[in-house]
């Protein structure tokens, strides 16, 4: 049976221009793929997509599809115009967790591509915004077969729905001198501690872990993660004065002015001084580890050696109360020993348990904190208050403070404890 070819005048316009075209890719599958099933599915897909372009509407609806033993990980898609485009009337996406840090060998990519070609459309994305490999387009039967095959060689589904989602981490220690922690280790330890919560959606809404190795936060963790882990350091940054001079000299006679304008004066806490002899002095006590000077002079300036992480909680985008940045709940935590890693997992468990108990339906952690207040949240997860958690203290006097003396006493006790430790 010859496949039906749909006219796609609007999509055809996306084949022109110098940037690689996804439409040309789908057409290649339609026209050149040896498997007739893939030809038909992709032809039908192009037909529906053209229909969307013409009418400026989407025609996919959700449903319930999963694999045996799991409740999530699949984005079910059924066409609302399936009678006109029957070969792609079921077009589910399978979310597969990538290796931490998104590293692949070509042989592994080929193996994934070969499996997908057997059961799916031959279209995939590395990666979706949550961080999954998206295998786009198969029917209910194909979902199970494809999963069975890739699961046998080490891949597992990611999260979809109200559950712990696939985690993400930056390129990190594998190829970055700014890295202050073992991003991939933390990433895997956290998300793999919650595989049950990834695969069986039963939480108020989604929960995301994201790990960045330094405050540049290339992973967008503060903006997008319910629990953001950011590498940092607490000793002095390292300054190679010879390299500072090399940077300045390389800019010629304007070098000094250039680095005054672009490094010294851009420091958010005025912690840098460029001395008359072109050496750089750092007020490490007031440095907030913003990374700007390290970014401009990566050969000369490096993070210190006393590495750890800052943990922030409650970042998310719009729905429902508006975008929220994460809030610091742990200013600094060492991540050197097995116990350090275990205590981070314990903190994550406290956070998820408390939210699972107290979050409303469809309420992210950040929204819950907005509703109940940070102090109630901290008490719920057993974390003490710290001035690093606030931009500034309270401005409103409308607050009942009859527990002041005890709270002040707690602070001094904690201080004394820390001093004697």
């Amino acid at each position: 049976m010859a496949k039906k070819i749909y006219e796609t005048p609007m999509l055809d316009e996306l084949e022109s221009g110098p940037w690689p075209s996804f439409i040309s890719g789908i057409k290649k599958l339609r026209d050149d793929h040896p498997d007739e099933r893939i030809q038909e599915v992709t032809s039908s897909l192009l037909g529906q997509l053209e229909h969307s372009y013409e009418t400026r509407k989407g025609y996919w609806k959700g449903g319930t599809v999963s694999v045996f033993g799991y409740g999530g990980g699949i984005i079910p898609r059924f066409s609302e115009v399936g009678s006109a485009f029957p070969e792609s009337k079921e077009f589910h996406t399978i979310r597969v967790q990538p290796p931490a840090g998104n590293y692949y060998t070509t042989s592994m990519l080929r193996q994934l591509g070969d499996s997908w070609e057997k059961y799916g459309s031959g279209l995939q994305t590395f990666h979706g915004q949550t961080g999954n490999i998206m295998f786009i387009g198969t029917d209910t039967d194909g979902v199970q077969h494809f999963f069975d095959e890739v699961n046998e060689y080490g891949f597992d589904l990611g999260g979809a729905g109200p559950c712990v989602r696939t985690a993400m981490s930056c390129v990190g220690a594998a190829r970055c001198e700014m890295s202050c922690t073992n991003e991939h280790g933390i990433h895997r330890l956290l998300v793999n501690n919650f595989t049950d919560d990834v695969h069986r959606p039963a939480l108020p809404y989604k929960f995301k872990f994201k790990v960045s190795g330094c405050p540049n936060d290339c992973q967008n963790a503060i903006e997008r993660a319910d629990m953001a882990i950011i590498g940092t350091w607490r000793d002095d940054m390292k300054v190679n004065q010879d390299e500072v001079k090399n940077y300045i000299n390389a800019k010629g006679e304007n070098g000094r002015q250039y680095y005054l304008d672009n490094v010294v004066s851009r420091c958010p806490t005025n912690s840098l001084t460029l001395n008359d002899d072109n050496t750089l002095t750092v007020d490490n006590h007031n440095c907030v580890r913003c990374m700007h000077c390290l970014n401009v002079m990566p050969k000369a300036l490096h993070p210190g050696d006393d590495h750890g992480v800052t943990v922030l909680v409650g970042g998310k985008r719009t729905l429902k109360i508006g975008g929220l940045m994460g809030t610091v709940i742990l200013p600094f935590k060492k991540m050197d020993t097995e116990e350090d890693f275990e205590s981070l997992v314990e903190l994550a468990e406290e956070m998820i348990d408390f939210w699972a108990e107290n979050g409303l339906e469809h309420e992210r952690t950040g929204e819950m904190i907005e509703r109940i207040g940070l102090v109630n949240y901290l008490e719920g997860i057993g974390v003490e208050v710290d001035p690093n958690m606030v931009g500034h203290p309270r401005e409103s006097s409308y607050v009942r403070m009859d527990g002041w003396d005890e709270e002040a006493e707690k602070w001094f006790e904690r201080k004394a404890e820390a001093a004697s430790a």
Partner: protein
Amino acid sequence: MSNDKPRSPIESGCPDGFQYMHPVMRKNYGQWKFHEHPQPGVLRHVANSGDEIWTVRVGTQRILDVFSLRELCDIGDEFADGYIHFTIRSNVEYLVTDPAKVEPLIKAITDKGYIVGGTKNSVAMISHTQGWLHCDIPGTDASGAVKSMMDELIDEFRNCNMPNRVHITTSCCQINCGGQGDIAINIQHTKPPKINHDLVANICERPTVVARCPVAAIRPAMVNGKPSLEVDEKKCICCGACFPPCPPMQINDAEHSKLAIWVGGNHSNARSKPTFQKLVAAGIPNNPPRWPEATAVVKNILQAYKEDAQDWERINDWIERIGWPRFFEKTNLPFTKYHIDNWRGSRNSLNASTHIRF
């Protein structure tokens, strides 16, 4: 369907990336000393051990067919030691230890039609969502809009002529899965949902839908003798939050779903704390297949930024220095009542000072 006993899953979770990492990265894990940027699209990292690794970053169509995936693998096998890394903006990165391999690798990549670039102070690959190809609630097709935009911005991807890096994102609904960006192009609905009252009772869990509305504009109602929902259209902010849990509340509208453009989102802590993006333009037609109006606004903003910002200023840093009135002056974008926020906490966004530039 077969009648075999179903197979139980192996709950292996996230695979270990070390097994797929280039051996030089494995060996020098956590031991990198510095990096350089020899040319656009190319990074050179040097480890304390003296080892080095060269990265060539490549823009692709993101939605890859298996032919393209294998082509990228072929290039990796022939020119780049058989390893591939994906950035979070869906670029492909090839990694080689021998600098002599860089130029042949770049040639192989460009010969196949892929684009080398996206490093340092370039316009990076637009981070985007799926759109009409696959999403169940999209108001537009991010994939098509991004292809059209990257066609126009390709020289800014291939070169490093911006004051600092520019991250652009697109999103097909107001949930904004594309995320924060120096420039974000997002759908903005302008009319309340159109309700198919015949379907609501059978498809929608009504209390869930009522609870989903950010402004409490939805209430249960009997319509034509059937249980349904009604929207207080005076309160409705046209956000579309009710549409995912209740598809009969159609929010997408061929005419009235527009594009809005936001600027100044920045996830980095460098210089200032991370920032959310701010509205600068709206009412832009959702105009497939090439969305020329949206691209024109983006190019206009980029041009003003490129001309006026100082080195290392991201778009948010630049506007912080020059002030919002001058931003609107330089871009010739209208400033309207819609730019003044009225959401919770919005008074903090007002100017409570005499800090005014003349």
